[in-house]
């Protein structure tokens, strides 16, 4: 595309179908605690998948 550059996968919809496993960390976003936005968290399932892919069979 000439006028638009898309910088990510835009896969939010797929994650609704496959997600919800609850393996990820709880995430208080308040100042007094972990204070993170939910979106800066990692999907634990994907992290595990990636680790499997990286580790030799």
């Amino acid at each position: 595309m000439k006028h638009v550059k898309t910088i990510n996968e835009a896969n939010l919809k797929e994650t609704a179908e496959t997600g919800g496993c609850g393996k990820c960390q709880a995430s208080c976003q308040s100042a007094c605690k972990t204070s993170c936005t939910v979106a800066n968290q990692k999907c634990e399932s994907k992290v595990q998948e990636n680790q499997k892919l990286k580790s030799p069979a």
Partner: protein
Amino acid sequence: MIHKYKLCGYNIVLDINSGAVHVVDELVYDMLDNISPPFEASCSERVANKLSRFYDKEEIITCYEEIRKLHESGTLFSEDDYEKFTEQSADAPLKAMCLIVEQDCNLRCEYCFAEAGKYGFDECAAMDFKVGKKAIDFLIKNSKERKNLEIDFFGGEPLMNFEVVKKITEYARSKGKRAGKIIRFTLTTNGILLDDEKINFINKEMSNVVLSLDGRKETNDRVRKRLDGTGCYDKAISEFKTLADRRGHENYYIRGTFTKYNLDFTSDVYHLYEQGFDQISIEPVIGKPDMPCAVSDRDLPRIFSEYEILAKRILADKKRGKGFNFFHFMLDLDQGPCAIKRLRGCGAGSEYVAVTPDGGIYPCHQFAGFPEYKMGSVLDGEMDKALKKTFAGSHIYSKSDCVDCWAKFYCSGGCNANNYIFNGDIRMPHRFSCLIQKKRLECAIMMKAALADEV
């Protein structure tokens, strides 16, 4: 729904429901003010004529075509069809628990939400091991099939009750092991009581540790004071350096608060970086407007520009291959949490609870001491199902401000506790926090766009 904005020379268009982030030229940016679905095969004459005053006719045609294709591929003006998922994980088991092991604190920070440890109670108390054990039993039992659990030692200052922290950790480890659970511990400390023994314990047992310090000595010592009024900077920073060094600068972060006194908080963030820390979080003080150090609407323009200053500076460092993680600008645009998680964020009161020294169960540490939000007690192991349901039902589709907010899948409806404390309703977002949240997101996404530009 789309959201578009300009920042640091980038024109950014977010497609909220697909999560797509587009960097666009001026023509697309302007055209999007004039068109919306359903799309005709070609650009209407009215819009083409309007734009042709500034743009080339041919360009207008190709630009329209690109927008139409994005729409077709589901990455622009995509539908919001997530509401049907709100019931999913509504009765999720418990997976995280905050243990307020010690209400008392050896500091008297000007902005403390826990009112120097009292929370809503008349007096400070410390948790004894018996209550701690019951809390762990409660967590393990109510976590059902969940394998990964989190326990967070919080205060007051948890290290004032270090022996109990040690015992609870040991108990939770052995009990968790038998139950087939993986337990991750976190501890938050102000550093005053740290010594070799405690640092070694923390580094061995805690998967994460949160170190509280506000930045420069003068910033910190103005608001973070000991009982005798002296500041805590010198002691805290030296212990924190030792602690972070010994854990290889992994899995910790240093977190601070900015107040009306240091709206130039970029200098505090960079001070911490220069002291060797690379995981940093600095948040605005959230407190009643009558608190002398409170920030208010009047400060917003200054706060916004400070976030931009910070974003540009971090970006310049990153481009030079240097830099650190600033929590509020960290964003994973591809591998972030699933949409289900994004519907309700922290999970307070449903997947997450806090336990006070008397065994009381509350939706989270910030609700501790509010009698109307007491959910039960770990002593008898009973928990109020109705309150759990209320909290599980608190998601972006039940908060009217969030439904139409572009930030909803990044923010997940904000902090229920703030909403309650400021607006008396967990479903009514605290506007001030929303505005700051949105500014930080805009900066974080702009930084992604800038870094994508490099490749």
